[in-house]
């Protein structure tokens, strides 16, 4: 009887295919994830258990650690309208060219009175040197801003506006500054808005954990 020789098989497998898959997935994830918009203002928002994602298109009010207030008009379709509205309402005397230039600025962080002189400057001032929108009890310019916002959005879906209004505050910002912004909202009949927070898991054993709200 002839001896049957079992050929010894190698245990190594071809890694090429696996390598292809790995890098395909990698490139997919890199391309599919949206880059965070560059943050000019460093703000660490507080945590909350809210699971709703913050909308991308938003009217964002940023409250920094020092209590400075900045406004970002993320809705490009309405941005120019809001700017021209406040220009007319507060008599800023901006020309069409200046308004155009202002429209390109990523955020607003100067008092209304300084806008004309800021736009005439060639060099851009870094965000941390800007004074912010004045928002104290005697001079709360956020009221004027919110008035323009509500004017421009009047007649459109108000729920959409409520979803867009965001306040992003720094952990260390003091409460009175936040209160002023809320006042500015209230003066313009805005009662619903949202706070940007960092997502956090619901603590195990808490009431919310045991009885989660029904999804609607």
């Amino acid at each position, binding site marked *: 009887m002839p001896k049957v020789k079992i050929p010894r098989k190698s245990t*190594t497998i071809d890694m090429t295919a696996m390598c292809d898959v*790995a890098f395909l997935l990698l490139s997919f994830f890199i391309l599919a994830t949206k880059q965070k918009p560059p943050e000019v203002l460093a703000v660490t928002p*507080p945590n909350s258990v*809210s699971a709703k994602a913050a909308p991308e298109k938003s009217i964002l009010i940023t409250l920094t650690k020092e209590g400075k207030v900045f406004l970002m008009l993320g809705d490009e379709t309405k941005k120019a309208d809001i700017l021209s509205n406040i220009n007319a309402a507060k008599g800023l005397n901006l020309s069409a060219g200046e308004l155009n230039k202002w429209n390109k600025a990523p955020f607003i962080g100067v008092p209304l009175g300084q806008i004309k002189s800021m736009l005439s400057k060639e060099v851009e001032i870094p965000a941390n040197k800007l004074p912010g929108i004045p928002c104290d009890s005697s001079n709360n310019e956020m009221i004027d801003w919110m008035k323009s916002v509500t004017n421009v959005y009047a007649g459109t879906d108000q729920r959409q506006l409520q979803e867009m209004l965001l306040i992003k505050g720094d952990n260390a910002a003091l409460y009175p500054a936040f209160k002023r912004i809320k006042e500015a909202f209230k003066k313009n009949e805005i009662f619903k808005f949202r706070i940007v927070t960092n997502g956090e898991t619901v603590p195990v054993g808490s009431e919310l954990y045991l009885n989660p709200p029904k999804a609607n």
Partner: protein
Amino acid sequence: MAEMDTSSGGGHKKGPGVKKAKKLSTRVDLTPMVDLGFLLITFFVFTTTMSQSTAMNMNEPKDDSTQVMKVKNSGAMTILLGKGDQVYYYFGQLEADRLSEQFKSTTFKQIREVIVTKKKGTKIDDLMYIIKSDKNSTFRNAIDILDEMSICNVPPGHYAEVDMTATEELLIQKTEEANGIK
């Protein structure tokens, strides 16, 4: 396949002196590359989910002095936020001769238990948490306490933010001084 070619060209068969050039395989071991690929994938997947910001809904009441909401003394708990992440609370109304007994100091870690105990011991219709923020409290404190309300499943409409009175401000100031909070 992806292994290294280890069988050298069998040079000794051809006798001494005849050297055959070694045939080098062009195949490389791809295992480390696959490892790296998956490592990067895991890294990207984790970092992207971590940094997603969420939005918390806020409903402010209309400021209307003609509509005063009445709250039962037995169902009310006032939470005061002070300097240095300190929390103070009292039940019902402050009474001048029982101040030190009523006015209690705590921290954010322990306030949840107080809120839950109060919620369990009170009829839901009477329940009302009154939140007052001191001028030295931070934005985080204000959001944390609202978050605490949703963690404890306090139904909306059973908690409200109210301005602080002068007596309370003074009480906080005194307690802070006594506890050495800066």
